[in-house]
């Protein structure tokens, strides 16, 4: 099949586990269709040899859609000419580390990368932040790359959304494609609010046998998987990144989706925070925040809690 265009995509943390699962999905054609992908793979200098191994394997997959590949540790080199950057790389939480330290270490990384974007990035580059704390990392990134439109900065809450869909499908014993408009609000953390308030199953609204349990399960699902596998959720995360980009790029008519985006004050959330909202994806990387849904007092309360946490995180991160 004749390949029409080329996109240049950068993946940070490219020698890591999520990248290892994500890159085959990116190159499979499932995200952008018959579009050639030039890869820019960024990781820290220590991972240079491992990164070479990753490149060898990409070569050995003989993907029809692979363009050229560059690797490196300098964002000012690798961010050039990128149409999309997937920020998988971040400072991991080490044993004994305070949340404050985690936030600040990552803020430094995303400040540097934001500055690189500002200097060499394409004016219209799209960003997906996955590395945790995703929302606050996304906020920091956007603060230092002011030439890039606010709506180009997103963070991942699609994993939480996919988890919520799965749990609802199991609880109601219904197929996944009968469900719509299950939304993750707020921070990608344990304060997130997975909401079925506007969701439908076969076009009808529904209640769950134990909504509190459902909410808590989604909030803590990462830990549940970690305990069972002895390893974090790798592939489901990579899959969610693929879904996020695919729907953001192609648009979705049949349902609202959850993406973390920069707030303009919708639902009374402090402007500038990166907050997961109900999003209508319009295609060609365009979207709109659906800002007029009726919210119950219960929901409003949940939104407040997660917003509080984000405000705190912002304070800690900005004290660098």
């Amino acid at each position, binding site marked *: 099949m004749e390949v029409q265009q080329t996109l240049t995509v950068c993946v940070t943390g490219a020698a890591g586990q999520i990248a*290892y*699962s994500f*890159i*085959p*999905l990116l190159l*499979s054609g*499932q995200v952008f269709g018959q579009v050639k992908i030039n890869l820019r793979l960024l990781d820290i200098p220590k991972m240079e*040899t*491992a990164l*070479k*191994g*990753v490149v*060898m*394997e*990409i*070569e*050995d*997959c*003989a*993907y*029809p859609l*692979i363009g050229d590949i560059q690797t490196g540790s300098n964002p000012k080199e690798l961010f050039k000419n990128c149409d999309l950057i997937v920020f998988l790389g971040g400072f991991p939480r080490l044993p004994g580390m305070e949340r404050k330290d985690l936030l600040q270490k990552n803020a430094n990384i995303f400040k540097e990368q934001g500055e690189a974007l500002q200097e060499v990035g394409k004016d219209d580059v799209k960003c997906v932040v996955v590395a945790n704390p995703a929302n606050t990392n996304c906020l920091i990134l956007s603060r230092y790359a002011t030439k890039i439109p606010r709506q180009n900065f997103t963070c991942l809450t699609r*994993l939480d959304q*996919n*988890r919520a*869909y*799965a*749990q609802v*499908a*199991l609880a109601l014993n219904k*197929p*996944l*494609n009968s469900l719509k408009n299950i939304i993750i609000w707020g921070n990608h953390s344990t304060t997130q609010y997975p909401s079925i308030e506007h969701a439908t199953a076969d076009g009808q609204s529904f209640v769950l046998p134990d909504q509190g349990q459902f909410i808590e399960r989604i909030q803590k*699902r990462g830990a*549940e*998987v970690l*305990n*069972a*596998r*002895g*390893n974090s*959720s*790798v*592939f*489901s995360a*990579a*899959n*969610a990144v693929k879904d996020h980009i695919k729907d953001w790029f192609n648009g979705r008519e049949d349902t609202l989706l959850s993406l973390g985006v920069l707030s303009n004050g919708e639902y009374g959330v402090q402007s500038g925070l990166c907050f997961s909202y109900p999003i209508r994806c319009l295609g060609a990387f365009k979207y709109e925040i659906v800002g007029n849904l009726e919210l119950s007092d219960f929901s409003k309360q949940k939104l407040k809690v997660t917003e509080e946490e984000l405000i705190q995180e912002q304070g800690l991160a900005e004290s660098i």
Partner: protein
Amino acid sequence: MQQIQKQIKYLKCKSISKRSLPINSQELQLPNLVNNQSHPLEQPSQVLLVKLGYSLIFRVASGEMLGPNQPVILHLIDLPFAMAALNGVVMEIQDCAFPLVQGIVATDNQSVGFKDVNYALMVGAKPRGPGMERGDLLKDNGKIFTETGKYINDHASRDIKVVVVGNPCNTNCLILANQIKDIPKENFTAMTRLDHNRAQHQLADKLGVHTSDIRKIAIFGNHSPTMVPYIDQMTAKNHKATVDQQWVTQTFIPTVQQRGAEIIKARKLSSAASAGNAAMNHITTWVNGTAEGDYTSMAIPSDGSYGVPKGLIFSFPVTVKNGKYSIVQGLPISPFYQGLLDKTIKELVDERNAVDHLLK
């Protein structure tokens, strides 16, 4: 909504544990699964955890292998002590909210695991440990694949297509297929697609073209250092292409043969992603057919072509149509290639002799 075809069941026989275990008679309940009954294994097996299956499961579940209209039921088999970790994998599959996954069977019971399966990707096997002779490797894997062969014969769908990936894959496939009485032998294959893809890339790189521009190459023989990358009829962008013989013998062939080791050195882990990718490619091509004017590589039961002893599981150039493969006949074999073929034939015959006691 597009036409949904019949349900297809998959199997991934992937994992194997490090420790030798006593029989575990615990009934294992797995939540949120289609079938969640399990029964104690009849015999203990010594097995090793291989991470190869992880990314493969998810790519298959996403619809990449059989296409976006083919719903799947995933069958995952593991040993009793590994059920908790397997449950974690099941949770992750659920967390992907794959529209095509209509069920997940996760079990330590092989008769449940293999029931009605249409496609089996056998990625698990006992790898070579330090100090281990090839003979020991063959013996240990012999037990695993003999048992698996029986379960497949008794429980799998009669049209099952099997690709053995776990090494030594050719001989493991031979052992497995030997247990099969009621399913056509040609349904049992081993994987050399990874070597094929690796060769394709090396040649594309040398010729300055894209991998998809390289056609008419094939891997003959054993998936081992004796494999034969045959490029006599190679085309690049549909024109006959040649590369100098010195590069072939001194760089190309050694690079393809040693690629796995090179990746382990760089990554400190095996080439799981590219191997899983190749396993998927193998099945997809087997189902969808080869492109016009091209062939692929599959290790299949030899019918005597190219002087290869009948019944050996041997990689040949094949075309595939309507779910059936045919060996590409009449390719010119120079003395250079004949020498390489002889070596790989001998190795496979030796392997077969080493497991002779397992073959009735």
